């Protein structure tokens, strides 16, 4: 079996007496989509924040692509190929769509102590940014201010910014958050198209999306990983059903 692209061992994060992430072991194989589900407050976002480097764990080890990244900063992890999207849309609202993507590309095109030539007419940045926007279907909206894009488009842009960093692993924190059924479906199809090309950690509330995309699912409840398995195994797992899915949804999904 191939070495995992991401390996998390004994990860712990507590805020006072509350254990948001409690001794979690976790791994993602190359090309795999590994979903993390769990009720609100289960520690999913805290989990992603630690993997992406925005939050320091209290204990545990994170190995990404053969590097121990536990002590590395978020930018350093990004440079190694770890990209993320945020649950609450996090874009540069006063930049255009293409500037948002171009900035992501710039972050991975050497240092930015370049003080003289205009950045946003640089074909090295704008060329690939336009190509990426075309690919994800936002090409026609490239020159619109990000704050003026529709919510669904902003969510797409968010993922485009992650893709523009040339990642080996995508951490997607609820990519369909706040979306209507149509937009959700669009993202689902889009992510399905990325499957196999990118390894993904998918945090998602929407069970349709999870069961449609995930190769494996880990269930997080009160910071503990109570089960890991294929979608079929998770559906059939009694503990999961009791803790989280609820009878109806488990059968219906």
């Amino acid at each position, binding site marked *: 079996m191939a070495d995992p692209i991401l390996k998390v061992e004994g990860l712990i994060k507590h805020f006072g007496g509350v254990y948001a992430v409690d001794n979690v072991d976790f791994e993602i194989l190359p090309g795999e989509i590994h979903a993390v589900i769990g009720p609100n407050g289960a520690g999913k976002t805290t989990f992603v924040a630690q993997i992406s480097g925005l939050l320091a764990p209290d204990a545990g080890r994170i190995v990404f692509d053969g590097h121990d990244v536990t002590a590395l900063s978020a930018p350093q992890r990004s440079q190694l190929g770890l990209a993320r999207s945020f649950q609450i849309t996090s874009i540069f609202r006063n930049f255009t769509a293409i500037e948002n993507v171009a*900035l*992501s590309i710039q972050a991975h095109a050497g240092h930015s102590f370049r003080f003289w030539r205009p950045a946003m007419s640089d074909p090295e940045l704008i060329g690939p940014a336009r190509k990426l926007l075309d690919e994800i279907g936002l090409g026609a909206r490239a020159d619109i201010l990000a704050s003026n894009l529709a919510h669904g488009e902003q969510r797409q842009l968010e993922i485009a910014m992650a893709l523009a960093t040339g990642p080996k692993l995508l951490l997607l924190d609820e990519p369909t958050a706040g979306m209507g059924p149509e937009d959700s479906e669009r993202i689902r199809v889009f992510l399905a198209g990325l499957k196999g090309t990118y390894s993904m950690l998918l945090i998602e509330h929407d069970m349709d999306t999870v069961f449609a995309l995930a190769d494996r699912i880990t269930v997080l409840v009160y910071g503990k990983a109570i089960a890991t398995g294929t979608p079929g195994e998770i559906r059939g797992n009694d503990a999961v059903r009791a803790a989280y899915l609820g009878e109806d949804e488990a059968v219906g999904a």
Partner: protein
Amino acid sequence: MTRLKLAVIIVAFVALALVPPVAHLIDEPYYLSLFARIMVFAIAAVSLDLILGYGGMISFGHAAYLGTGAYAVAVFSFYGIDNGWLQLPMAIIASALVALVIGAICLRTSGIYFIMITLAFTQMLYFLGISLEVYGGDDGMDANRSEFVSWFDLTEDINLYYLILAFLILSVYIGYRLINSRFGMVIRGSKSNDLRMQAIGFPTFRYKLMGFVIAGAMCGVAGFLLANLTEFLTPEYMHWFRSGEIMIMTLMGGMGTLFGPMFGAAAFILLEEWIPELLELIHQGWGEHWWVAFGPVLVILVLFAKRGLWGLIPDRSRNDG
């Protein structure tokens, strides 16, 4: 940038270039020093806008670099060294170093803490200046004008005036290149969403610090020019009140517009000159309370020109604010 805005800038620079002959013609040399002072503070306000308007760094201590640049002139002058080719680089290097130290510490904080700690550092420098008895303490001391041997003679007011104008144009041009460069995109992105910048791979601290140092060095040049203009040095150049004035100029002109702060500096200094005179005309002795009248002017500006004077110019493009 719209054509209208470009036209406003060109007209402004042409007008500034015409001040000396006009002042000479109407025999009012006072205007020469008035507009020279406006331009010196325009450089300071533009430099502050680079970090405040574009980088989101609310530095309440920008006068520190003004003072450092001025000290570079006066202290050399004190020891009999009037060579401008030495003083000017020293003003730039010294203010850059001061900005490096202050920035390296302050940029680890944000929000209100950043404002207060930049203020505190500048006040420390102010009191340091006061305690340096050898350089006149709080009385300050005279300074000779810098000598640029066989280049131009700064003892001629008109030469100094055009040197200041040249530095203003240079500052604005450098600022324009900076904010549109890759470096500029990083500090603007970091103002917009620092967390996101880090997540896409930018170690933002070092870029913000570099921006802080560049702005400090640019303001140091303003200090160099100020000391030449006044032929005097006082720790007052570093007083927090001065920092506040530079910030008000930037806000009045339009934060994050680069060109606006020039007009903010002009508006501020002209109002500062004229309001007391007006009040004096109305009633003798009112002039010294000019802040009472100036306050409401600021309030009106804040209420009706949220994007500063520069924002009053009609604009359909968005990038230049």
